[in-house]
């Protein structure tokens, strides 16, 4: 049996949220709201994922004029694979999140 990756609950939560819409670029604040994680927890986690090549980021120009550019994030292919592996090995809730997102993507495709 494959061994579950040893990652924290917060990382699993962030991975499952990011893998919900794997192609979409997400803002840090939206991720905070969606995961319920505080910025002090989320950003170190995003930095670590980025260092490990699991997350890609880029600067986006704002839709409203006068606003500063925003940093956006999405999982890389390796990150998406880890999210799937984590969800299948983790709790039923996490599995449900990823399964639900995959089903909705499959339905909309």
């Amino acid at each position, binding site marked *: 049996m494959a061994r579950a990756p040893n990652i924290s609950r917060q990382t699993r939560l962030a991975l499952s949220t990011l893998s919900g819409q794997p192609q979409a670029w997400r803002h840090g*604040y939206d991720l905070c709201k969606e995961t319920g994680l*505080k*910025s*002090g*927890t989320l*950003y170190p986690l995003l930095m670590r994922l980025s260092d490990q090549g699991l997350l890609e980021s880029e600067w986006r120009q704002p839709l409203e004029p006068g606003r*500063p550019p925003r940093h956006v994030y999405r999982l890389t292919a390796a990150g998406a694979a880890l999210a799937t592996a984590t969800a299948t090995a983790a709790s039923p809730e996490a599995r449900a999140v990823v399964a639900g997102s995959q089903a909705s993507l499959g339905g909309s495709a």
Partner: protein
Amino acid sequence: MSYSIRTRCARALGRHLIRVMPPSRADWAAAMKAVIEAIGDPGAALSFALGCARVGYRRRLRTVAGALAVTRWSVGTVTVFFSLLVLANAWWSLESEIPGALPQIFGGLGVAFLIAGLALVRFGPVAVVGIAAFMLALNTAALLAIGADSLPFVEVYRALVIEGYGLWLALLLAGVGLHQAARSPRLVELARQNGWEA
């Protein structure tokens, strides 16, 4: 807290974050600052900014420069507190009308420790190495002078000199250690291997 104060605090924290975050994470600091400026709700912006500031400080402490700065401040602060104790002792000796030169010696030592502590914080380890070396030389001169005379309280003076050797030597070694550590490529490499920031 009013709307504008919370917004201003949040934005000030965002600007502060840019200075605090290690250079290797400058892009992330800019990202967080941009989010802080984009959040409309002042309470949410302040809460978000406080979390980001925590990240900045934690990252800063996980650099060799950050850890050395904390050590320098800690040793400096302890030295200053110690100097206040010695000065209080000098005051007490003066008030109690203890004969001999004890109040003056305590006063001089207190001032020397105060200068050493402040110099470490303000000017860095080289300054404290210089002061400690000078005080060790002074201690040696005092020890020789005590040996030559049969002063009253000679044992007390001798004990003070020996205690001074220990304390000034500790400060000298702390200064040398901090100075060397700041220039050690091995320490930087070791820190990097343990996941510290550049």
